[in-house]
């Protein structure tokens, strides 16, 4: 899977590349508008991460060019300006998602995976990890072909950890994923622990190996 990162903040793009490489994506970086246009014109990408404010142009213009050339690359806008207007403009121009900075890398990875699933498999995709398979279309989980009854939160949690497999996902990232903006209200991670406990119990009961590991104080990891 090829990802293009259009981002002028070099350290941030380096972080993104490092994280996504571990997730087996191949990444390219464009740190200005000119390079971005050149790259998008010459190559196709599965997903493009697009920063709106570039030193020599507006990222939205890149998006317009892509759409004008009938390119089907998925686009996620990553912007420091979390404004409703930017979000609406971006999505209206055909962006697939909008992620305000600062974001969690696992969140970015999950969003990229979702965009690629939508683009490549028309929304129906089955993520198979040994005996565990997650149907992201039906939002259903089976272990050894037997369905596992999970709550909405438990399903989200499992998919989130699985798309970031073999990476530590911090508690903050999980809290934000599960409860959205509400995670900003309470600094209480006990509810994550409660959900993980239930999820692990249900998976174990249906014969799934214990893939979800607690990483001391930092978070959780889906290890496979």
């Amino acid at each position, binding site marked *: 899977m090829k990802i293009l990162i259009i981002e002028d*903040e070099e350290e941030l793009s380096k972080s993104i590349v490092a994280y996504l490489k571990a997730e087996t994506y191949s990444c390219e970086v464009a740190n200005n508008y000119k390079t971005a246009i050149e790259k998008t014109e010459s190559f196709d990408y599965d997903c493009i991460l697009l920063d709106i404010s570039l030193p020599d142009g507006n990222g939205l213009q890149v998006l317009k060019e892509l759409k004008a050339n009938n390119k089907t690359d998925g686009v996620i806008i990553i912007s420091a300006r979390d404004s409703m207007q930017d979000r609406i403009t971006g999505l209206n121009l055909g962006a697939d998602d909008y992620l305000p*900075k*600062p974001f969690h*890398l696992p969140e970015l990875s999950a969003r990229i995976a979702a965009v690629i699933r939508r683009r490549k498999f028309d929304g129906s995709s089955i993520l198979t990890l040994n005996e565990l398979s997650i149907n992201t279309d039906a939002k259903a989980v089976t272990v050894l072909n037997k369905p596992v009854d999970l709550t909405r939160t438990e399903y989200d949690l499992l998919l989130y950890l699985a798309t970031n497999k073999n990476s530590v996902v*911090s508690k903050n990232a999980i809290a934000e994923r599960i409860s959205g903006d509400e995670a900003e*209200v309470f600094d209480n991670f006990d509810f994550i622990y409660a959900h993980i406990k239930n999820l692990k119990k249900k998976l174990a009961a249906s014969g799934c190996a214990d893939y979800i590991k607690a*990483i001391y104080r930092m*978070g959780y990891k889906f290890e496979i």
Partner: protein
Amino acid sequence: MQLLNKTIASYFSFSAVLLLAAIPIFYFALKTALIDTADEELLATKTRIMPQLRNAVVNHDQGNLYLYGYDIVFEKEQPTKNRDSMYSDELGGLYSNKQSPSRLLASHFTINQEFYSLRIKTSLADKLALIKRIILILSLLLVALLLGLLVINRILTKKIWQPFYTTLKRLQDYRVDKQPVLKSEPASVKEFNDLNRAIELLTERNYQVYTSQKEFTENASHEMQSPLAVFQSKLELLMQTKPLNEDQAALISDLANASKRMSRLNKSLILLTKIENNQFLKKESLSVKDILQKLLQQYEFQIGQQSIHIAFDDAMDITLNANKSLVEILLGNLLSNAIRHNVSNGNIQIYLKEKELVIQNSGKPSSLDTQKLFQRFQKNSPDADSIGLGLEIAKKICSLNHYSLEYRFIGLLHTFSVRF
């Protein structure tokens, strides 16, 4: 005391004193002049009738003497050294039955070695009546003059001060976040024009300072987002490194929490500037009850964890026409505060009344400092969760929508009420 009344009061007291003093002085001056005239008349009468009297005495023909009625008394008297005298008879009736103030001339002289006295009286009644009438008319005139002056003065000063009051009213209504500069129409008085110009400059400078401060917060918050994003991403990469011992993991986790707080603070600051910049324009019809129920559901875990008992009196609903995100933030802040600052096994009471929402919660058994409550970074708890912007945001949202937000401490319950 109003400025207008203050100047008028000085005029009025001066005029009143002058009037009170002037009327008696005038009365006495007039009276003296009248008496002088009467005396001259008496002397003239005496001079006129003296030859007649002398003739009558010499010819022993007093019976035919025509003495002008009762006003002249002419008779023989014992020798006397009295000289001519004039005096007033205030009550009258001294030499006649007619009761009226009069002026008398008593004269003593000799004709053929015999002593005679002559008394001539002239009535002052008519003259005094005249004085009284003059004084009355004069007083009326003076009072009318005084009142007229007062009224004219009042109308005039009011008119002259009109630009001042206009400016004052506009200054009272002035909000630096609503109006860039306070412009006034030119006035006819130089001082007021100077005042208006000074105010214009002052408000203009104020607005500049205000906008640059606002821009600073805005830019600083936005510029902060990128380094924060870098910091957070590097921390998350650091989490992936191996091997990590427990000490390192603990340090990274603490850093992650600090970074989360920083980004939360930053987001709140951006939200505040957005509210101040009035960037939430889209309005829709909202049910307060629905939003509260949704929020309670969202906070279910935290409520359950502290075993907080919720009493939600939702017999009534309030429908608002406002921006959804803002109302959700407002109610979310109030509700999460009620949860966060609560105690274990505490309670929260929510009442929906007509046009009013009341949220009460148990917690610290003393009132919060109402002076500082709604100010930026005024934390009422040592809790690290709270960043001290929640209530300021709530207050800003309320003032933007013209709601009123109040805090009271009633019967050990912290009570926040929003009047829509």
